[in-house]
């Protein structure tokens, strides 16, 4: 792939984010790019402040009790993510959990009877099929938060603190499986990280990831926008720009993955008020870390106005407010020998029309 094609793919990804991004930020404007004058490897769109994100994670995890209470979303997504491993009948000697948070994936892997099929009421935990799990995260406090819990004894898990989550420092072709649960949405250079994941996988090995995307927290986004517009006459970003389902398929393909599966799952959580939602987001370590955000806390007037608008615009009849988390699950395989490949175009012998009409 030429440099030109790669950088234009990044631009198309970023321009789709620009719909959600603040109008005033100029770094998203996809100016026509002249392919012959691009410095290689220089195009890196900075959307999130990595240091702010690291601080937020450290702070959130330093209050272990509160942080565990707010882990409901990450635990649930980790369970749904690991369930996808049931479809792959394999042993994985060496697996990587990229952006492990507090090792929620490791905890989900050690669950008894993971198979939801009622015909198999007892099944061995998925961890029996994993030789070694390496869990990496940038936040040490969060990574080691549950290091003394029971699940650590049921799985060979090694925790590893990394300085920069966007540079994966492992040998090429060293893993049989890469998992990632709810951390890719804070990556600035998503195309680059996906390409690196593809690189560290052994041939014919899967990457299974889950990230927040699309309409995640659209209720909070719209309420705060309206509140800031009415109270202060303008707005600054409070909810991250997120990749959409369409983007993820293209990104995986451009990173070199084969046999892609991308699906979406909405988890809607009800909260008593907007303040409770924001407190929980903070305890999850998922506070706002956009580079161009307004510094300092949100003003009290905006918060109060936002809560009232949230209720009026999205509120449930019982007085609670819903918050949507849209999870994008992605599975991609590194290219390998003897891997099933799509047939050549035009080689089909059966008409789909005949099959569908007889049904």
């Amino acid at each position, binding site marked *: 792939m030429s440099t030109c094609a790669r950088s234009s793919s990044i631009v198309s990804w970023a321009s789709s984010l620009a719909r959600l991004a603040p109008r005033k930020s100029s770094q998203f404007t996809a100016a026509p790019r002249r392919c012959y004058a691009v410095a290689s490897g220089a195009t890196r769109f900075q959307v999130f402040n990595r240091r702010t994100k690291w601080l937020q994670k450290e702070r959130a995890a330093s209050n272990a009790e509160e942080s565990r209470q707010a882990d409901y979303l990450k635990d649930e997504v980790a369970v749904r993510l690991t369930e996808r491993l049931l479809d792959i009948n394999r042993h994985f000697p060496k697996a990587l959990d990229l952006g492990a948070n507090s090792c929620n994936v490791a905890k989900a892997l050690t669950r008894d009877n993971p198979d939801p099929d009622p015909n198999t009421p007892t099944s061995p935990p998925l961890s029996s099929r994993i030789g070694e799990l390496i869990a990496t995260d940038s936040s040490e406090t969060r990574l080691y938060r549950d290091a003394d819990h029971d699940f650590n004894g049921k799985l060979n898990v090694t925790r590893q603190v990394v300085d920069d989550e966007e540079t994966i420092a492992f040998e090429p072709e060293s893993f049989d499986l890469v998992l990632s649960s709810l951390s890719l949405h804070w990556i600035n250079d998503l195309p680059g990280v996906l390409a690196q994941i593809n690189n560290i996988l052994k041939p014919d090995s899967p990457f299974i990831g889950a990230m927040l995307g699309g309409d995640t927290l659209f209720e909070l986004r719209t309420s705060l926008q*309206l509140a800031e517009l*009415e109270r202060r*006459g303008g707005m600054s970003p409070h909810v991250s720009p997120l990749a959409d389902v369409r983007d993820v398929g293209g990104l995986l393909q451009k990173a070199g993955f084969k046999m892609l599966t991308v699906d979406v799952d909405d988890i809607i959580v009800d909260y008593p*008020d907007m*303040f*409770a939602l*924001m407190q929980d987001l903070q305890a999850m370590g998922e506070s706002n870390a956009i580079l161009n955000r307004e510094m300092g806390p949100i003003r009290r007037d905006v*918060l109060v106005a936002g809560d009232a608008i949230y209720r*009026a*615009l999205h509120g449930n009849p019982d007085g609670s407010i819903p918050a949507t988390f849209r999870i994008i699950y992605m599975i991609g395989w590194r290219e390998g020998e003897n891997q099933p490949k799509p047939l050549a175009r035009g080689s089909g012998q059966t008409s789909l029309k005949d099959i569908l009409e007889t049904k």
Partner: protein
Amino acid sequence: MTPQTSTRPIQKLSKAVAKCSVEATAYGKCIVADYNDVTKDKCAREFMRLKDCYLVSRHVPPYNLGRTLTEDGSLKHHRPQ
């Protein structure tokens, strides 16, 4: 880790706002009536009522001087004799 004993400001705010559902609903209705055309201070009147209410329900002087919050969420003004 010792349990937190102090109440965070946002929890105080949350409690205070919860007592002002009448004003909050009025403000919310004003915005949602035409949310494609929101301008600065479009619903300033409704917001000031809401703000008055939560400042009083927080019991922060001097806003609660001469005013108390009644059971039904409305403000009662006391004029000094």
